[in-house]
C-alpha cells in the first residue's frame, strides 16, 4: 500500500471519516444520555485538517479552562482520543451523576474545584463514553482497538490539546481530527476528538473498502 500523504486525502475520505465520527459519537452520546438520564444532542462531526496554531480555536479559545479526558489508542488503530468539555459543563455532569452531591448552587458551580471523588467520576464517565465511541469504531471496521487507561487534565484548552498535537507533530505539520460537539438544553457543552495517526487512517479506510 502506498503511503498516504495528508494533502491527498480527498473529500470522499473525509466523508467516510465523518461517518465514522458520527457512528462513534452517536454511541458515546447515547451512553452519556443513559448515564445521566437526560437528552443529549450531538452535532454533525467535522473532519478537519488543521495547522497547529489553529488547534486551540476549535474548542473556543486556547485559554478557556477545560476538563479533558485523554487516552491513547493502541492495536490496529493507533492514535489518541480526547473527550473535552468546559469546566462548568463537567461540574454539571458530575453533579447530575452524583445526584446533586456537590452541594453547590448553579452560580457556584462554575468556580467549583473538583475533589478526588469527583475527578474519579469524570474519569469514569470518560472511560465509558470513549469506550462506547471506540467500540462502535471497532465493530464497524473489524479492527482491534485498545484504549489506554484514561487520564484526566483540568487546564487551559491549548495546554490539553497540545498533548495529542505533539504526538501528531512527530510525523506531520498539520493535524487531522474528527470532532463532534455534544450538548444538552442547558448545561453540557463539550467535544469528542479522535486523532488516529496517518497509518491508522489508511487501515481504517482500507477496512471499509474505500482505498
Amino acid at each position, binding site marked *: 500500500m502506498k503511503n498516504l500523504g495528508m494533502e491527498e486525502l480527498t473529500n470522499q475520505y473525509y466523508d467516510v471519516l465523518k461517518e465514522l465520527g458520527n457512528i462513534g459519537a452517536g454511541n458515546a452520546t447515547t451512553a452519556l444520555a443513559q448515564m445521566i438520564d437526560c437528552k443529549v444532542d450531538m452535532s454533525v462531526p467535522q473532519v478537519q485538517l488543521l*495547522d*497547529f*496554531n*489553529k*488547534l*486551540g480555536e476549535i474548542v473556543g*479559545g*486556547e*485559554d478557556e*479552562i477545560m476538563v479533558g479526558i*485523554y487516552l*491513547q489508542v*493502541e492495536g490496529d488503530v493507533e492514535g489518541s482520543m480526547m473527550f473535552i468539555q468546559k469546566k462548568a459543563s463537567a461540574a454539571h455532569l458530575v453533579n447530575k451523576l452524583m445526584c446533586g452531591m456537590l452541594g453547590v448552587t448553579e452560580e457556584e458551580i462554575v468556580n467549583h474545584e473538583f475533589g478526588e471523588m469527583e475527578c474519579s467520576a469524570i474519569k469514569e464517565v470518560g472511560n465509558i463514553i470513549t469506550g462506547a465511541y471506540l467500540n462502535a469504531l471497532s465493530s464497524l471496521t473489524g479492527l482491534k482497538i485498545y484504549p*489506554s487507561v484514561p*487520564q*484526566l*487534565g*483540568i*487546564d*487551559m*484548552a*491549548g*495546554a*490539553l*490539546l*497540545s*498533548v495529542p*498535537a*505533539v*504526538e501528531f*507533530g*512527530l*510525523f*506531520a*505539520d498539520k493535524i487531522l481530527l474528527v470532532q463532534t460537539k455534544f450538548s444538552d438544553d442547558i448545561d453540557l457543552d463539550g467535544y469528542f476528538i479522535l486523532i488516529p495517526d496517518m497509518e491508522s487512517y489508511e487501515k481504517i479506510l482500507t477496512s471499509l473498502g474505500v482505498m
Partner: protein
Amino acid sequence: MSEVIKVGMADLAVCSGDDAVTTLGLGSCIGIAIRDPGTGIGGLVHIMLPSSTEIRNNSNRPKFADTGIEDLVDAIIKKGGNRSRLEAKIAGGAQMFASSSKSDTIRVGERNAKASKEKLSEMHIPLLAEDTGKTYGRTVIFYPKTGDYVIRSIGQPEKVI
C-alpha cells in the same frame, strides 16, 4: 497604542517598542523568549518538539527547539537586534497527563526544556530565568522592552520572571 501579538503552536513572532508577544495555553510545548536589551527588540517562539534531527518531516522549523531558536535569533537580528547582546527566558514543558504507556512522548515536556537549554548554551545566549516542568499549563506574555516574562496558570498566582 501598544499591541500584543499572538504566537500559535509551532510559530514565532518578533516585536519592539511597547508591543508584546503572547502565547496562550502552553502545555508540554515551550515558549522561548529572546531579546536584545539594548534595542528592546525581541520575540517568542512556541516549540513543540525537542529536535528536528530526530524526525523525517522537519520542514516546519518553528516546531522544534533547535531550528525554532535559530529562526527566532535570525528574525531578531533582521529587525535590528544585536546578536552579541541576546538573552533568553523560557517557560513551559509541563507534563499535562500523569503517565502513559508511550512514556517517551509523554515526557516530551522535560525533553523540550532540556533541548531548549542546550541549544541556547550552544549559541552562547545566556538563560536568565526559566519556569518549566510541573503539571499545569501556562499562558505567557513577553515584553521585549523590559524583558518581563509574565506567566499565568490556573490556580496559581501570576508570576514575572
